[in-house]
C-alpha cells in the first residue's frame, strides 16, 4: 500500500514536486519559472525548496548564464519515486471510498 508523505503533502511543496515530476529526466527548471508559476516570493519559494532539498527530493544548482546568476532545480530519482508513491496513495484514498 502506497504511503502518504508529510513533507511533500504541504500544498506548495506538492505543486513544486508536481512541476518537477512533469519535467523529463535530465532536465532542470529555473527558480524564476517556479516562482512565476506558483506565484510565490523568493523567500517563500526558497524555504520550500530548501525543505525538499534537505529531504533529498531535489537538487539546486546555481550557475551563471550570460553573466547573470541563475538557479536551477531538478527532481532526484528518490524524489520522483516518493512523489509517485504519494500520488498513488491519494488515488487509493479516493478508490477506497
Amino acid at each position, binding site marked *: 500500500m502506497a504511503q*502518504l508523505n508529510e513533507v511533500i503533502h504541504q500544498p506548495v511543496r*506538492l505543486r513544486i514536486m508536481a512541476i518537477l515530476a512533469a519535467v523529463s529526466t535530465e532536465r532542470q527548471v529555473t527558480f524564476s*519559472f517556479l516562482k512565476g508559476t506558483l506565484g510565490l516570493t523568493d523567500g517563500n519559494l526558497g524555504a520550500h525548496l530548501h525543505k525538499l532539498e534537505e529531504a533529498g527530493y531535489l537538487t539546486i544548482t546555481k*550557475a551563471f548564464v550570460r553573466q547573470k546568476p541563475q538557479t536551477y532545480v531538478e527532481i532526484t530519482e528518490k524524489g520522483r519515486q516518493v512523489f509517485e508513491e504519494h500520488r498513488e496513495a491519494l488515488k487509493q484514498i479516493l478508490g477506497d471510498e
Partner: protein
Amino acid sequence: MNLSHDEAQAALNDISQATAQTNHLLRVWLYCTLVCGIVWTVAFAVAQWQPLAPIWSAGETILVGVVCSFLFAQRLSPVVRFTPGSRSAFIHSRLPIFFGVLYAFFILWQFMLDLTTMQVAALWITVVMLATITTGLLLQQRLFIVCGLAITVMTALGYWLVPTYFWLWIAIFAGLPLIGVSLYLLRRR
C-alpha cells in the same frame, strides 16, 4: 497521516493543474512545428496555381518555415535546461550542428546538381524529415520517427505519382500533418 476524500481530491487536483501548466510550457516547441506547417501549407498551396517567384524557390520556402520556427522558439525564453554533463545535454548540443551541416550539404548539392524546382522541394522536405527522424532516434521520440517517415513516404509518392499536382500534394501531406500533430499535442493535457 490521514486525509479525507475531499482533501485527497483537492491534492490530486493541485497536481493535475501544476502538471498541465508545466506540460503546456514544455510543449512550446510545438508552436515552432505549427509555424513551420503553416508556412509550408500556404506557400505550397499557392505555388500550385502561382508558380514560385525565383526569389521564393522551394528550398528557401522550406527554410523560411524552419527558420521562422527557430526564431519563434528563441523568443520564448527557455525555462528549462538539460542537466549539464547528461546524455540529453550532449545530444542537444550536437543536434544544431548536425542540422547545420546537413542543410549546408544540401545547399551545396543544389548548386552542384541541375535540379528542377520540384526536385529541390522534394529533396528539401526529405532532408528536413531525415533530420526529424534522426532526432527522434537520438531522443527516443517515436512520434518524430513516425511523422518523419510518413511525410517522407507521402512526398515521394507525390513526386512520382502526381507530379502535376505535386505542390498541392505536399501542401496537404507535408504541411497539414505538421499543423495537425502540433494542434493535437498542444490540446492534449
